């Protein structure tokens, strides 16, 4: 059996705005292995959440092209009933905002047991309740019998996120997608939740796609990292390579704009211009070119594709060979052709 459990090929997810379709995810190809955490990093508007929703088949009115191969199915072309059999059973999702992701009028026990009702029909009501209590224990909820009958608004944000995780892992999914799972939480709670996700990963042996804008979270959690910009993956590598030897100008710029906890006062790097909105995305050429205007146009490819620069390390476009920050001269740039 191959280690690959999810294969996305040339995925293009487009939304209709007025009379035109605009691709929020464009030409995304990647694989996820068993028991691996793949981090997907990008800023708002990069298409990372749209990618996650495509994999879960949660886009209602989007046009999806390409293939999402998972367990002998292609989620890009799947019937609703087959999709519903996969969702909650073989693949599950953890959401960003634990405040709104739970039904305010349903006790949490009922919300967790719904996944069991849907996929474990043979379970008796008593077995289900036992299983839910067991899950609440597993995600670290104190007094699970009591919490079972509580409503979401009676719980703190961290507790609610644990409930969402309990829902996601109820049927031991093979694929878990975590969409900014800690963005809405305090740092100490974030550390606990990330820890929990890691423990559970080993427990259920799942492949995890972790979507975040926080490079620190990726550095701590991921095995491999894909960086997204304007709907495309611009760089993908294992986590050490990506942080030690980032190549794509966007990856390098992003890393330089994080206030580093190690060093002090130096000026942060600012990426010029703004992330283009969906309808204004450049459709041709290197999409990052407009944000690095000091790099000569000839450095970019006409139709940028992914290049494998080292085993498992892919970079889009050729511009990384000629890239340097505006305040360093070309010669300082250690990366690239020699």
């Amino acid at each position: 059996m191959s280690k690959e459990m999810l294969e996305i090929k040339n995925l293009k997810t487009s939304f209709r705005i007025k009379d035109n379709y605009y691709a929020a995810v464009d030409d995304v190809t990647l694989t996820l292995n068993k028991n691996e955490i793949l981090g997907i990093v990008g800023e708002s508007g990069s298409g990372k959440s749209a990618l996650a929703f495509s994999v879960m088949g949660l886009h209602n009115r989007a046009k999806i092209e390409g293939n999402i191969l998972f367990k002998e199915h292609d989620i890009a072309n799947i019937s609703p009933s087959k999709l519903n059999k996969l969702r909650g059973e073989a693949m599950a999702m953890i959401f960003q905002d634990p405040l709104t992701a739970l039904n305010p009028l349903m006790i949490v026990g009922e919300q967790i047991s719904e996944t069991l009702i849907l996929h474990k029909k043979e379970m008796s009501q008593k077995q289900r309740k036992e299983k839910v209590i067991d899950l609440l224990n597993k995600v670290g909820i104190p007094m699970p019998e009591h919490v079972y009958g509580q409503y979401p608004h009676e719980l703190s944000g961290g507790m609610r996120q644990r409930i969402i995780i309990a829902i996601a892992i109820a049927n031991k999914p093979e694929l878990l997608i975590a969409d900014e799972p800690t963005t809405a939480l305090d740092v100490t709670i974030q550390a606990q939740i990330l820890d929990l996700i890691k423990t559970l990963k080993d427990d259920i042996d799942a492949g995890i796609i972790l979507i975040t804008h926080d490079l620190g979270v990726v550095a701590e959690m991921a095995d491999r990292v894909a960086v997204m910009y304007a709907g495309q993956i611009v760089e993908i590598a294992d986590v050490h390579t990506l942080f030690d030897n980032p190549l794509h100008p966007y990856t390098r710029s992003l890393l330089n704009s994080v206030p580093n906890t190690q060093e002090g006062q130096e000026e942060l790097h600012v990426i010029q211009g703004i992330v283009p909105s969906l309808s204004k995305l450049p459709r041709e050429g290197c999409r990052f070119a407009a944000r690095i205007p000091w790099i000569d146009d000839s450095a970019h490819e006409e139709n940028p594709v992914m290049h494998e620069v080292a085993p498992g390390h892919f970079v889009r476009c050729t511009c990384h060979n000629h890239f340097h920050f505006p305040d360093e001269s070309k010669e300082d740039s250690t990366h690239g052709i020699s």
Partner: protein
Amino acid sequence: MWKFIVRRLVITFPQIILLSLLVFLMAEMMPGDALSGLLDPNIDPAAIEEQRIKLGLNDPWHIKYADWVAGLVQGDLGQSFKFKMPVTELIEQRLVNSFWLGVATLIFTYLIAIPLGITSGRYNDTWADQMITGYTYIGFATPLFIFALVVLWIFGFQLQWFPTSGSVEPGMVPGTFEYVLSKIQHLLLPSLSLALITTVNTVQYLRSEIIDTKQKDFIITARAKGASESRVYNRHILRNSLLPIAAFFGFEITGLIGGTVFVEQIFGYPGMGQLFLESVVGRDYSVVTSVVLLFGIASILGALISDIILSLVDPRIRIK
């Protein structure tokens, strides 16, 4: 939750007292009093004055108010000088008629609103939704009394499917099956025409509740669990959207009161609304004040019911 209901009940009492005071003062300001209608104009004014003092009509207002309230509590609403009978007796039968009209109207209102609202909300921006929304706009724009007249003319006079006035066929014996059937037959047309107009509020409200709930994050959570579309609708969207509608129930009662005044008059249905109009036109003040008071109390109770239902169904309020 009990604290909430008790507190809510406590607030209701001053509301009712204030209402009675207002109604009483309005009645006081109207020209004439109980005697002016009863007496022969040829009687000596001095004798009338003597009579007035004897009856307490010249007392200061707060004493008269106290007397009036004492009467109310014992079920004495005064005398109607038009019908020459106690108001209590007069109102009794009318109240029963209006009650059944109200019940029938509410049933029709929800029978129409729930399927239409759900269809419209679930399949919004389809042609079915556009038809339903179109109907609600017509409903908003059509005055009830014109609609009721048209309905009466078509179904009562032209097609003669329904009786055109009264609450029961004359000569029926109360308690028999035919009597009940005749009652229902008399109810159908007025309640249906009232419901067709007033339900558009509920249809629109339900539609926007559903469209709103549809876009909530927890619906995505439900889909991600693998719930089918029909389960997502039945377990999550409908349940969450119908609760506010249930809470709206009490206010529907308040809304009904205004509608019955027109509808009962047009269909010649002997209820409170018709009595109200008749006594206003006939300057039967003791009846008018009593009816206004009862309408007011019904409204206050309607709001009370709404709040209690809301506190029962919404856990976010229930806990406090």
